[in-house]
């Protein structure tokens, strides 16, 4: 039986993480390679790097980070943020990432999904979705709309429709982020997550809102997610992955306990 995956997400700007791990002794590790190794040893099932570097001339720094991470950790990891072309994908994958994630670029140019899938295989292509609850309407029948720019720009695209469309285009996985829940640490958007996860036949990673282990239980059971993304709750040392996994396992969720 497949395990539910627990995936820490690291935001990286110009080669440094924006939220370093603060351990009890208050040492702040901002090196993404060190953090990746830390989470690898802590039992992460996968790691997501989100490159928030603004300019493309800094992209080489990220590629170097990917290359160094790939030498240290032997679990899958993905890279997202600013991936606009098949060549961007190629650079990240050749540097050692298992998957690339496209978000804004896929909305603006959906062809990047089949192009990427054809070049590298569907299993490499993750569709990142930033979604806001807007209420049901003729234009947005599911009541959930695609947004970009961190939620400031509404795209007029129904999130449920887009998830299915991306699957048809060849996306291998969806990383579904609720902008409403993101940063609240009050729990994932369960209605949205189960809606999307049940509508597609590819894995869905839930993102946004994780604050305590109960939230992961909720989204991996009622939310029907295949994996859960976590950030602050582990970066700031409130919880450890092994404790989250023990909790989930006791509650009957299948997770990988031996690493």
């Amino acid at each position, binding site marked *: *039986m*497949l*395990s539910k*995956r627990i995936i820490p997400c690291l935001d990286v700007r110009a080669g440094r993480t924006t939220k370093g791990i603060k351990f009890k002794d208050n040492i702040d590790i901002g090196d993404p390679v060190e953090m990746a190794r830390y989470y*690898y040893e802590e039992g992460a*099932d996968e790691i997501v790097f989100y490159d928030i570097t603004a300019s493309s001339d800094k992209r080489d720094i990220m590629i170097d980070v990917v290359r160094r991470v*790939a*030498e240290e950790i*032997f*679990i*899958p990891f993905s890279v997202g943020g600013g991936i606009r072309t098949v060549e961007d994908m190629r650079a990240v*994958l*050749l540097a*050692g990432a*298992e998957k690339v994630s496209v978000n804004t670029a896929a909305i603006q140019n959906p062809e990047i999904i089949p192009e990427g899938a054809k070049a*590298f*295989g*569907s*299993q490499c292509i993750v569709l990142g979705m930033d979604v806001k609850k807007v209420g049901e309407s003729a234009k947005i029948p599911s009541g959930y709309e695609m947004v970009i720019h961190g939620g400031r720009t509404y795209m007029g695209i129904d999130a449920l429709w887009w998830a299915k469309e991306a699957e048809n285009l060849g996306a*291998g*996985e969806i990383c579904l982020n609720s902008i409403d829940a993101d940063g609240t640490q009050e729990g994932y958007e369960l209605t949205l997550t189960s809606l999307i996860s049940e509508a597609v*036949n*590819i*894995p869905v990673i839930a993102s946004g809102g994780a604050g305590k282990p109960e939230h992961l239980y909720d989204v991996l059971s009622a939310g029907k997610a*295949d*994996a859960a993304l976590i950030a602050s709750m582990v970066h700031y040392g409130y919880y450890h992955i092994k404790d989250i996994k023990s909790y989930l396992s006791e509650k009957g969720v299948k997770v*990988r*306990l*031996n*690493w």
Partner: protein
Amino acid sequence: MIAIIDYKAGNLTSVERAVRKLGYPCKVTNKAGDIKSAERIIFPGVGAAGQAMADLKALGLDNLIREAFLGGKPILGICLGTQIIFEYSEENDTTCLGLVPGRVRLFPQPLMEGDTRLKIPHMGWNGMKIVRPHPVFSGVEAGSEFYFVHSYYPVPTDDNYIAGLTGYGLEFASAVAYKNLVALQCHPEKSGRGGLKVLDNFCRWDGYAQ
């Protein structure tokens, strides 16, 4: 030297990195000289069976791998590499290398586990029940899980070839051991400590099953 067969099928750098990390000299190659002189061969691959077989033939690698196998060289298949060693794959209706008697089938749809509809591909971490002791699995801790990404699964003709079983709606052969060949449906290079242990074992294995 360990030859990691390069036939354009996906990203081979992760296999190379893992083998180097373990301290073994290796080379990603499609050159006949390298493959003939290698002490062992890793046959990885990500992608589709039809294209992979076409590329192997175009590069003349099909015969080189067959010769290496018949010559007793230890060979490790990974993921698509594992599927290609069988006689036939339902993916693109492909005649494969035929080193191991058996076929490769698509997961049936809908694939159910109790009341739950399972997604395809089978992507993520899953267990592997070792059903036949083999040097390549020695020292792998019970309960270790491995990383899988695939929509097709191997069905050896003879159950005696099965070394490991994994459940995903149905039980399939996730590890096959046949003569001097071991083939894994999972990605040991992406499967943490347990996966590295399997790779390490393979890199020391003499090619004899017991």
